[in-house]
Every structure is written in structure tokens, then in C-alpha cells.
């Protein structure tokens, strides 16, 4: 599941249909065939990172990957071609009454510690809410105005330090590190 642009682990609750802060209906699939395929962490990370619009990805009973975006969810069986031909297993749900997505602004980078070494994971972006200068996951306002969409070299400045995140100060054009 993505929070801002940081990947965090979560679980899908089939009782409440919640994954993290998101609610979406997903049916538990039951196989009537013996299949050897199973969903791996690589599959989940690869599906999540395949599209910037993906909010959450979860494994449906071991043989389907559910990919959730803000307005829809895809349930894609991860199995052999003839089994894939079973349309009953492929679903696309449009999620109803979902508020329009908030467009966040990319202001910097966070230290990126990988849980999955088999998928190229770009540095986590530091995301600011457009109506305030509070960055997601921190709860405090940035002390100065950041440059939007800063260069990735800023990340390399960050990992030379022990700080948690970095942004570029618009007034001084210097990197500012934050830990709160």
C-alpha cells in the first residue's frame, strides 16, 4: 500500500473490506482446479510500482493480484493461460462515491529502505498537501517554502546524512533536512 509515495505493508480485511484507509469490495476466490501458481512479494511490489496511480495491491487467496486505484479495482488472476480465460475470475470494479483524488506535490525525498530487492523501487517522494505545507507522515509544517519536483540528486545528498528526509529550500536553493 502506498502512503504518499512511501510503500507500507498492510493487510486486506475481508470483513470490513478495508485496506489501510481505503475501503473496496473484493470477493474471495476459490479455485476448483489444482494450480501451482501463487502470488509472491515480487508480484505485489511489481504490480504496485507499475503505475503511479496505484494506491494499494493485495493478494486474493493466493492466486490473484488485486490492484486498487482511487476509482477502480482490478482483480487479475496470476495463473496459466487457459485458466486466465475464465472470465469469471477476471474482474474490474468501479468504486462508487469515491472523492476526487487530492493532487499532492512532490517536494523532496525520503530515505528509501527496500523490503523487496527484486523490483526497481525509485526513491520515496516527500509529498506535500496542496492546501498546507505539511508533508505526509510528518504532521508539522515545513519551515520554509520548498522547490517542487526537485532533482533526484537531492536524494544522494540525503543518504550521505542520517536524516530522514530532504527538500530544497526555494529561497536559498540549499537542501534542508528534516527528521520530525
Amino acid at each position, binding site marked *: 500500500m502506498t502512503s504518499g509515495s512511501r510503500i507500507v505493508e498492510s493487510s486486506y480485511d475481508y470483513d470490513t473490506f478495508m485496506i489501510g484507509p481505503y475501503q473496496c469490495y473484493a470477493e474471495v476466490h476459490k479455485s476448483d482446479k489444482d494450480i501451482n501458481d501463487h502470488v509472491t512479494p515480487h508480484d505485489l511490489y511489481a504490480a504496485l510500482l507499475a503505475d503511479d496511480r496505484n494506491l494499494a495491491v493485495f493478494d486474493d487467496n493466493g492466486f490473484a493480484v488485486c490492484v486498487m486505484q482511487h476509482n*477502480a479495482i482490478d482483480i487479475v488472476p496470476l495463473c496459466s493461460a487457459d485458466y486466465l480465460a475464465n472470465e469469471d475470475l477476471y474482474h474490474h470494479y468501479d468504486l462508487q462515491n469515491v472523492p476526487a483524488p487530492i493532487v499532492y506535490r512532490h517536494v523532496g525525498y525520503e530515505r528509501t*529502505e527496500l523490503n523487496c530487492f527484486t523490483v526497481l523501487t525509485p526513491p520515496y517522494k516527500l509529498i506535500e498537501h496542496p492546501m498546507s505545507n505539511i508533508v505526509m507522515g510528518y504532521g508539522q509544517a515545513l519551515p520554509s517554502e520548498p522547490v517542487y519536483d526537485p532533482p533526484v540528486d537531492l536524494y544522494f545528498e540525503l543518504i550521505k546524512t542520517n536524516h530522514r528526509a530532504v527538500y530544497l529550500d526555494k529561497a536559498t536553493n540549499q537542501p534542508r533536512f528534516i527528521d520530525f
Partner: protein
Amino acid sequence: MGFNYYGKGHIHKCYVRDGNVVEILQSGVEVKYPTKLNIDIPVQQNLFLSDHVFFWLRKDNLDYIGLCDGNILIVEGNLLVNWSTWTPPFYQEVRHVGFVGSAGNLRSVYLDMRDRRTLYTDTDRQECLVAQEIKGEFDTDLAIAAATIVDVTIATYIISKGGDLRVGDYTWTVQNDLRVSNCRVFV
């Protein structure tokens, strides 16, 4: 660490020198794969198996993880330090030519530039062959005008460029054996 053949479990020695990842086969033959790494790493071989990692080398507390998709992760512990690219075995040049699916369900489609007839989707691992060669140069400005999944195995799509110009209609069918180890699915 070493060089792992996809799905085979054969670990070979390898090293990095002069901008190449070099695999040393059991016969002693060396096979080079270009990379953008600008460091040299001495010969290493340790046991590891992965469906998604070709080589895993270590130097100066940094792990260099060569992925099957041509990317290289450079990590220290589990901290992402840098990343690079290389040309993996069985590399095939592809172009992003458009999308398939209905609204809200778009999936990227890639064209195999060797035959210009084989199409791939990435997330659901479908490989399709179109009836005729797709000509022209492609860029990400190609956008789908209308696309409908007839069923999961047969899809009809239309590629358009610039909104009005219709390039062609193709019907493609999914080939069998998508999950066998030597299939050419773009993942």
C-alpha cells in the same frame, strides 16, 4: 552472489570490468553484457536463486543486484543508495505503443521490435501476436482511441496518433504457455 540463469538454478561466476558484466560459463567461456556501472568488481560466486535476479555482486559493503528487466539496484544493507542499468540475457528491444483495456483499466502495451508483431502487456503477463507487421516509429505519444476487452484471451484495440489519425486495427489472441520458463513474456 554470482550469476543466476533465470529459472534454471545454475549459478555461474561473474565479475564487472570495463563497463561489462561478465559471466564465466562452466566451460570457461566468458559472456559479456553491457552495463552502465563504472566500477570494477572482482569475480564472485555464491549460491542464490531467484526468478527475477540475474546477478548479485558485493563490493565495499554495497550490493549490486542485477534484475532480469535490465535494472540494477545498488543497496547498502537495505538502504537504496543508487541504481543503474544493464543489458540482460535474452534482452529484447520493445517500444511502448499504447494501452489496452476499457476506461479505468488501461494496461501498457509493448511491441517487440524484432518482429514488430508480438505485443506484450506487463501486469497481467499476456503475450499476443498481431496478424500484420506494425510499422513506424513509436513513442509514448501514441494513445489508445478505443479499446475493449472482448474476453480475456481476445482483445481488439485501435492505436491512434494525435487523436484523429487511425493507424490500424488489430485483433490479437493470447498465445499458450504464458508461464513456461522460456516464454517471451515481458515482465
